[in-house]
């Protein structure tokens, strides 16, 4: 299938704004559904995006989300400005978390997010600069 980009849109996330957390992922899900991707593909992309959006909301100052969709794949980049991740391999371990009680009260911060994003992605690329921010690139094949 073609990898020509049919759709591109940027979204913004404000760190600490828990009342808006999830709105970007909800919108992305609606867009992908409307484009006509298979429901299984839409669900995988929505789950990965929601976990990533929650991470940016919980840990970063602000973030930009770039969604691009082609007939072959959905690509999403989450680029944030924030503390970064000092040890990515540790952060990838299920159950490892630096969440605060406030984060746990809203049902997140159990150390499942990053492994779950990886599980729902076909390509997962996480890079971080401590003190500057984190960039996550994921691809979900159509």
């Amino acid at each position, binding site marked *: 299938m073609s990898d020509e980009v049919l759709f591109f849109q940027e979204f913004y996330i404000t760190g600490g704004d828990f009342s808006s957390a999830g709105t970007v992922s909800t919108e992305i899900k609606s867009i992908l559904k409307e484009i006509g991707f298979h429901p299984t593909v839409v669900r995988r992309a929505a789950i990965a995006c929601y976990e990533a959006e929650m991470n940016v909301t919980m840990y970063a100052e602000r973030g930009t989300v770039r969604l691009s969709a082609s007939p072959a794949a959905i690509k999403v980049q989450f680029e944030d400005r924030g503390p970064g991740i000092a040890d990515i391999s540790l952060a990838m371990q299920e159950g490892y978390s630096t969440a605060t009680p406030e984060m746990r009260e809203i049902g*997140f911060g159990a150390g499942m997010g990053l492994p779950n994003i990886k599980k729902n992605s076909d390509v997962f690329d996480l890079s971080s600069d401590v003190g500057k921010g984190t960039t996550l690139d994921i691809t979900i094949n159509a």
Partner: protein
Amino acid sequence: MNLKELCGILKCEVLVGEHLEDVEVEGVCAADLMSDVLAFTNAGSVLLTGLSNVQSVITTHVAEVIAVVYVRGKKPDADALKLAGQKGIPLLASPLSMYEACGRLWKEGLKIGSELGG
């Protein structure tokens, strides 16, 4: 089992939703951690939870869970009710504990709606 029958078994008050008899329940997931729901729950399941904020409804929408049952007499907040109304997600409130609610549904033969099911 359909959602209306489930309501009767769990003594639910219907907060959002109509025509519940038309919604078939394929399985059940019980969790307060939304990351667990996102990681393990199958589409088509009902979520039993004690988490009553808007994240419970967003998680339900994203993971394609068909309805939420708030246990222990909890009621969702205004944002959760509003979003559920917009997305057409039934919200139900049961006075039962999580343990009893799960036990009753298990006894009726409902399957585990997650990848962890045996």
